[in-house]
């Protein structure tokens, strides 16, 4: 008998972390990890029946829980934001290839993220925060619109304490703001490498941010073969069936969402 992949399971909200007015992290119970282990960069279809489903990246993974950082942008997420600890969502997944932390091991890692683009790589950062000896160096450049939009403040503090080189920047800030101000691209030229040809980079965020970040990386001589992206598209299934996420001969949900830049850069939507 074929498994019915469309039937969701119920998951309890264990904790709600409010980062910003429109962005919360929901920590959901997950006890299927033995059978269905979850990797950073994978996603689940999360739903509240009657409001529909949406593909959401996993932003944190523990033995019994998964974090989903959700931006309130539509009727489903409006409804999701009405839910609290002890309530339930329906979920199915994990879907997509996700990041294999092994590919980063022993390397200098540059992670560039814009806004909620931090979610898919959050798990990667968490892993190396606990295993700093497994990589040469980890630099995270993350940009938000304004100081009020900064996500994962607590996590960032923890990451910095663990020795991650973290640059948190905002597009604009009120006077008197002491942190970094400017686009993420501003900080790419300042990066220093011991062994640039073997360094690895991941860029995640809105399309213009990705485009200009890669331009900057190219400018400093970074090998494009070592750049990775995480794509997002409309997806109704996560199973290679609904067709919405196709670009050329690629299905984002099946072949991605994590791609080598050189694989996806020539594709036209």
């Amino acid at each position: 008998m074929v498994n019915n992949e469309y039937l969701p399971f119920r998951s309890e909200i264990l904790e709600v972390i409010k980062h910003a007015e429109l962005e919360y992290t929901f920590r959901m119970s997950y006890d299927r990890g033995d059978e269905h282990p979850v990797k950073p960069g994978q996603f689940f279809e999360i739903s509240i029946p009657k409001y529909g489903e949406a593909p959401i990246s996993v932003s944190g993974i523990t033995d019994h829980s998964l974090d989903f950082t959700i931006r309130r942008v539509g009727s489903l997420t409006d409804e999701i934001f009405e839910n609290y600890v002890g309530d339930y969502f329906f979920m199915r997944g994990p879907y997509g290839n996700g990041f294999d932390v092994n590919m980063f091991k022993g390397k200098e890692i540059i992670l560039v993220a814009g806004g909620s683009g931090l979610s898919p790589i959050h798990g990667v950062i968490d892993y190396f925060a606990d295993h700093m000896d497994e990589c040469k160096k980890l630099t995270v450049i993350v940009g938000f619109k304004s100081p009020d939009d900064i996500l994962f403040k607590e996590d960032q503090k923890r990451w910095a304490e663990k020795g991650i080189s973290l640059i948190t920047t905002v597009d604009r800030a009120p006077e008197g703001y002491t942190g970094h101000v400017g686009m993420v691209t501003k900080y790419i030229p300042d990066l220093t490498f011991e062994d640039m040809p073997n360094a690895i980079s991941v860029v995640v965020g809105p399309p213009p941010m990705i485009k200009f970040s890669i331009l900057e990386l190219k400018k400093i001589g970074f090998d494009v073969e070592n750049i990775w992206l995480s794509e997002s598209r409309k997806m109704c299934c996560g199973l290679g069936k609904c067709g919405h996420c196709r670009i050329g001969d690629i299905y984002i949900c099946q072949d991605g969402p994590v791609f080598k830049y050189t694989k996806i850069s020539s594709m036209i939507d």
Partner: protein
Amino acid sequence: MGYQLSRRALADAFKSWSGTYDVYAPTVFAGTGRFSETDVIRYGKVTDPADIVWDARSDYSFKEILIPVCQVLFYFTEHSVQESEFPKKGAIIFLRSCDLHAVKRLDYMFLQNGPEDYYYKTLRDKVKFVVMGCDHTFDGCFCVSMGTNVSTNYDAAVNFKDGMYYVDCPDETLAAALKNHAEGTCDVTADHVEKDDVEVHIPDNLTSAIAKSSIWDEYDKRCIKCGRCTLACPTCTCWSMQDIFYTENGKAGERRRVQTSCMFDDYTLVAGGGCFRQKAGERMRFKVLHKVLDFKKRAGFQMCVGCGRCDAICPEYISLTHCINEKLPQGMKEVLENGQ
């Protein structure tokens, strides 16, 4: 060896099958056309062989049986979900050779591209295919060009001549009833066409670089994004998920999947308003290249089966065959010249 049956005899065979199977075939839905007092030929349950349309191509394809236009996946209450029920009977589908080739495309999408699709698989396992012999080509068919004019992997094949049905039936389940009701036996080979009036030639040098050519611009103004080409296509499979609720308090409802089209505005629309391919020409490019390039890259065989339905149904007279034969070579020439 095949069987010869009159209308009455075949109707009796239908009756014998009806315990386990519903027979679906192209049939006339009178007066349901886009214009008043016009008919539509599409798939419906048939009990009388005389209701099967032989002298024309169906406007819409058989795919509606395997991937219903609207299919409930499950019913939900606040805390639980319950799978929807499937038809108790299997389906015997009368279809043309090109359409049986389209089944291979559907199978690829639903059984191979990613995990097997539970709903498709459940329906698919209970289907028998009966090929309707084509003794002539229809206006706009190009099956020969796409290599779909001959089928051999059918459960049965029927030729219809002078009021008699001649059936070749390798499938033993179906054969039993045919044997019982047959008025004679004879050798039967499914009719097929060797030559269509329309031929298409997919350029050998076609690559995705053509996406950047200007051949698509013309469609920005011509195409109205209605999606008829994809809805009528036997190989288009896209669908969207819909949740609806039945009660005022919204605590019970259903989740269903509904056919959609890459021509529709909401096809790539994500929460928050992002949308790829706003222009009709971009959507045309997305569809055409899927049919004759991208699908093959992934699956190893062409998607388009040359049934001609998209050309026949387009209200703006946009022709896929014209696009393949005239536009694609022109577009490749353009991008190759620009590349040099």
